[in-house]
């Protein structure tokens, strides 16, 4: 009887230890956060929103594309692009709210019907309000 009780206790203890181990096991790896992986500039984009001809030099008549690759997933992420001229003059600002479930590409584009003034420009990308990277480029005649 005593032996039976000991064996039973041992079995119960093992079972509990097993449960406890399962409970403390780390959750399966998931990508819970979104981050910006890269920013590319170009004059055109492909169907997958990636830039076909990366460049940092544009002509006044060009439409300028910024292709932003993100990784991770989120129910909602706010991706913004802020375009500036010669350091301080804001050219344009736009935002897209996305719900990525893995790698994604988001493009922003700007155009100016009467042509871009020659000079230095910058596009700053932010994710949920936090700076996530920037690219500088020039417009030359």
């Amino acid at each position, binding site marked *: 009887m005593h032996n039976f009780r000991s064996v039973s206790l041992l079995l119960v203890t093992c079972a509990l230890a097993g449960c406890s181990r399962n409970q403390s096991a780390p959750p399966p790896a998931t990508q819970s956060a979104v981050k910006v992986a890269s920013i590319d500039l170009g004059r055109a984009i492909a169907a997958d*929103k990636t830039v076909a001809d990366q460049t940092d030099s544009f002509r006044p008549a060009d439409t300028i594309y910024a292709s932003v690759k993100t990784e991770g997933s989120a129910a909602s992420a706010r991706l913004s692009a802020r375009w500036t001229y010669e350091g301080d003059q*804001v050219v344009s600002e736009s935002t897209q709210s996305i719900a990525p479930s893995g790698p994604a590409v988001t493009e922003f584009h700007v155009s100016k019907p009467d042509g871009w003034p020659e000079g230095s420009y910058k596009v700053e990308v932010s994710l949920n309000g936090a700076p996530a990277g920037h690219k500088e480029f020039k417009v030359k005649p």
Partner: protein
Amino acid sequence: MGIFGPKKEKTKPDFSNVKSGGSSTAPEAPPDLAPTPTSGGTYVVAKGDSLSKIAQRHYGKASEWRRIYEANKDVIKDPDLIYPGQQLKIPAAEKA
């Protein structure tokens, strides 16, 4: 005025007619899930914008347009009239 005459100030280019847009391979987030910014910022009015649309974009609620209007009374005379290229201050979202 100096001995070389009045200093010429470089005029800033006009970007009010800039067209912007974008798209993504990721699905668009439902408006009610769009995160609200915790810090303010500036926004350049684009063609077709209204204060309600800007408020919807930044706060997730079109009804918050008055907050933007109140913060920009120096540049907005009539809340129904805003112009492409106008630079607006976007007050920080109120924390819940």
